[in-house]
């Protein structure tokens, strides 16, 4: 099964007609991703690598039935792009763009909460469309390296030979560590169901808890690896979910033990504020909740093999 992306994913690249868009498109096509459309305002009617580009998300969906988007526009345009995609009813938006203003993220989350619960306002003339369930509107990111279901669909830039299909779900704030860990798992013969980079920021879309819930419900995923880092409360909240709802084993790894307080370590969200957000606190919370915490990268594989 895998979560979020699979063989039915029809991807739209929002920002395709740009340098970043071209690089992502080229990489994903090489990985076999089913890219059906690109969107860049003003470039509608052009093509890139055999993929048609449209001016708006709605036009792209109408023409190609796209059901997911990868957003790679500049940070100043990202809110508009994400809201446009959500408004066009795309159930999955993966935002690769990093450095989106925090208050834009506040607005985006507010809107996504609204669309997730609401029926779409429909003019009288079009009524007759029934909505039986709330719309899914999942945002992964910002600064997400991607969502990768090996053998099914790779949304984002995947280095070659790192991923392989299997039953371990991986979720990570860090993209580079997601690759590192996935590579180690692949070498150990532990394939991955889905690898998700939830990205970085003071505020992000889907958090650890949202993804853990999906892994718990996914028949293909048997174990989960959670890669955390200093800053925020995501790992602590994940620990709460692990204790209350997770039946599948969770192996956790948290970085930033040597980080000084008050300095963001590369990631805007990797920030120890006062007493909050230390690696130690996160590890304690995860251990108390029953997750197995790896002290070293190598130990992740050992803990998974123990089963």
């Amino acid at each position, binding site marked *: 099964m895998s979560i979020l992306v699979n063989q039915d994913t029809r991807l739209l690249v929002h920002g395709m007609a740009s340098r970043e868009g071209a690089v992502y498109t080229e990489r994903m096509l090489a990985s076999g991703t089913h890219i059906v459309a690109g969107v860049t305002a003003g470039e509608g009617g052009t093509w890139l690598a055999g993929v048609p580009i449209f001016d708006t998300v709605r036009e792209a969906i109408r023409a190609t039935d796209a059901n997911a988007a990868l957003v790679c526009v500049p940070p100043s345009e990202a809110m508009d792009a994400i809201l446009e995609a959500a408004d066009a009813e795309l159930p999955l938006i993966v935002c690769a763009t990093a450095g989106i203003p925090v*208050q834009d993220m506040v607005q985006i989350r507010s809107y996504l909460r609204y669309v997730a619960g609401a029926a779409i306002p429909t003019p009288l003339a079009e009524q007759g469309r029934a909505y039986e369930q709330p719309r899914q509107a999942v945002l992964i990111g910002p600064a997400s390296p991607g969502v990768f279901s090996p053998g099914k669909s790779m949304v984002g*830039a995947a*280095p070659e030979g790192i991923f392989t299909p299997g039953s371990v779900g991986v979720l990570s704030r860090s*993209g580079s560590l997601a690759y590192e860990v996935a590579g180690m798992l692949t070498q150990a013969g532990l394939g991955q169901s889905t690898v998700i980079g939830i990205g970085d920021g003071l505020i992000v879309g889907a958090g650890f808890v949202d993804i853990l819930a999906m892994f718990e419900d996914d028949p293909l995923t048997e174990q989960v690896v959670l890669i955390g880092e200093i800053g925020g409360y995501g790992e602590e909240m994940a620990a709460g979910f692990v204790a209350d709802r997770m039946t599948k084993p969770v192996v956790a790894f948290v970085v930033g033990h040597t980080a000084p307080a008050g300095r963001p370590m590369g990631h805007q969200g990797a920030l120890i504020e006062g007493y909050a957000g230390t690696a130690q606190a996160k590890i304690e919370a995860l251990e108390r909740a029953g997750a197995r915490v790896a002290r070293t990268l190598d130990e992740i594989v050992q803990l998974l093999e123990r089963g």
Partner: protein
Amino acid sequence: MRLHEYQAKRILSQYGVPVPRGEVASSMDQVRQTAERLGGRTVLKAQVLTGGRGRAGGIRLANNSDQATELARQMFGMDVRGYMASKVLVDEAIEVEQEIYLGITIDRSISQPTVVASAQGGVEIAEVVHETPERVYRIPIDPLLGLRVYQVRELAENIGLSREQLPRFSPIALSLYRAFVEYDAVLVEANPLVVTPDGDMVSLNTRMVIDDNALFRHRDLIDMRDESQETPIERLARRHGISYVRLGGRVGCLSNGAGLAMATIDVLRAHGIKPANFVDIHKEADAEKMAQGLQFALNGASQAVVINVFCSLSRCQEIARGILLACQKPDLSVPLVIRLEGTDAQAGRALLESLAAERGPAQVRIARSLRDAVRHIGDLLHGARSGEGL
């Protein structure tokens, strides 16, 4: 981006927040002029972008303009925890009956802006949260609605303000939130917000931290940046879009991802090796950026530099070219241990192998994994030492 107290004070007073009369001074003449104009007692505050000024003698009370000038003389150029004060804020001294904390921040546990208040003002809120969390009240703010008056009423009641104090407290809270939104702040604080014997409320210390990601839409704020509060290398790193944190040890640490960089310095530390720095060139780095990042990693690294790069968007070949570029000096100052993985790894490693062959293992070593890299570092530093238990 942190603003100085005097900058935050100016902005918030434009929103109608009551602040003490006073002016920022860059010279002793200016201090004297302001102190004379204010008359009576004044408070001198060193303008530095760090906390703990009081303890370091950066906040002093003067009885008259002579004393003010004398205190300022000691304050200009003073070092407060590594930050140098080139400006001093001269404010009228105000009688304080009650000290409150009031701030707007992003609460990461709910991913929403939140108003925070406590009857325990005048100390770092992190301390109050740590020691007496029950004395800190938070109310989440819905961005669609903004901060509502009924929420402020609830907050005022929680911190024990009287009904009579509400008409002064409410506009201040609403102004803080408006400034928070309009300036793309991640923090706006009045700490302490004081109640005077006359019943007035005045913000004695204002603080604003602006979201770096939003600076592109605040050109006026970019001009307000005080570069004297950064070290030259921090300034350079910022301008190159490279994250740099000085850690004080002897092994430089460069990576192209924050998580990988943190994992690398964690492993070094676990092996008793203190990192000199944390350098993250982020994804999509080209050869120039890699070369620049390596320069930063070499800064302060007296024993070695470890480079741990996992390419996804960037290409290993490009990264390797950057290393070659930086290595154009005939003799490197310290040995490099390089681990390169990901997109185009073979091509990149081929370039590095020839560099390693040319320079020899005393200068350049190629590692196959993070564990291997740490083993090499251990070898270089202490002679034979196995790198087990990564």
